[in-house]
C-alpha cells in the first residue's frame, strides 16, 4: 500500500522541537502564614495556565498536615473573569489531615481513569483550591502539582 498523502518528513526520528512540552508546575503553600489562611468556602488561585495547554492532572502532596481539614477541592476557573468552570474537576473532597500524596484518579470530571483525563484550556485558565471544610486551613504545608502538556 502507498499512502495517498504523505505529510511526514520521511525520517523516522523524534523531532527535537517536540521535547520540553511536558511540564510539571509546583507551588508550595504554607497555610500557617496569615496571608495564606483559607476559611470555609474561600478559594486560592494556584496556577495560571495559558490557552492551548492540556492539564493532565492536578495533585497535592501534604508535607505538614492540618488535623481539622478533611475536605478541599481543586478545580479550574476562567482566568479573565474568575468564573468557575469546575470547582472540583481534578480533586474532590481531599483530606489533608494526614501527610502524603493526594490524587483523585476516578470519579471526577477530569479524572484520568474514568473522566476526560485532563482539561484542555480553550482560554487562559486558573487552577484553584477551595476549602469546603468548616475549619480554616491554617496549619498545613502543601505542595500543589499541575502536570501539563503544551499543545500550542
Amino acid at each position, binding site marked *: 500500500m502507498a499512502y495517498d498523502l504523505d*505529510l511526514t518528513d520521511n525520517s523516522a526520528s523524534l523531532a527535537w522541537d517536540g521535547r520540553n512540552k*511536558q511540564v510539571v508546575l509546583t507551588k508550595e503553600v504554607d497555610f500557617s502564614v496569615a496571608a495564606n489562611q483559607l476559611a470555609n468556602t474561600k478559594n486560592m488561585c494556584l496556577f495560571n495556565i495559558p490557552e492551548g495547554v*492540556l492539564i493532565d492532572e492536578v495533585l497535592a502532596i501534604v508535607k505538614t498536615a492540618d488535623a481539622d481539614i478533611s475536605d478541599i477541592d481543586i478545580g479550574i476557573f476562567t482566568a479573565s473573569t474568575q468564573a468557575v468552570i469546575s470547582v472540583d474537576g481534578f480533586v474532590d473532597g481531599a483530606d489533608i489531615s494526614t501527610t502524603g500524596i493526594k490524587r483523585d484518579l476516578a470519579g471526577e470530571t477530569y479524572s484520568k481513569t474514568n473522566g476526560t*483525563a485532563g482539561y484542555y484550556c480553550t482560554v487562559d485558565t486558573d487552577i484553584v483550591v477551595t476549602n469546603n471544610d468548616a475549619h480554616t486551613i491554617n496549619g498545613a504545608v502543601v505542595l500543589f502539582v499541575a502536570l501539563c502538556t503544551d499543545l500550542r
Partner: protein
Amino acid sequence: MAYDIDLTDNGASLAWDGINRQVVLKKTVDFSVAANNLAQNKVAALFNIPAGVLIEEVLMVVKTGDAQVSDVHIGIATASTQATISADGFLNSLSMVTAGCIRDLAGETYSKQDGTAGYYTLVDCDIILTNVDADTINGAIVDFFAICIDLN
C-alpha cells in the same frame, strides 16, 4: 535485607539521561490546500515514529471545522511497507465538524483508559489519518499531536 545484585548507582536521583524522553509531536494541516484534500477512504501519513517508542496518545485540535466531515480514524502503519497495523487504534470515527480538542480515551485498541494505553513501536511506524466520511476533507485546519515516550 541486602540485595543479591545491586545495579543502581546508589544515589537516589533522577538521571540526566532520562530527561527529554517525553516528546510531543505536532503537525498542523490545512486541508483547504488542494494538495492536502483527502477524499473518502484515502490515507494521510502524519508522523514517522522510530522503533522503540511508546506512542501514548494521538489527539487532534480542530482549529477550523469542516462541516461535512464527521468520521475520521487515526491509527498506525508499518513505515517500510505502509501496511496498516490498526486504522483506528487511537481515534475511531471522530468528527472534524466543530473546533476543539478531540480525544478518544476509551473503547479503542490503544485507548488510555481501557485499551493498551498506547502502542510500542517494534519497527519504524507511521501514524496515519484515514477519512472514512463520504465527503472529502477540504475545509478543516487541524493540529495533530502524538504524545510519545522514547524508550530507546
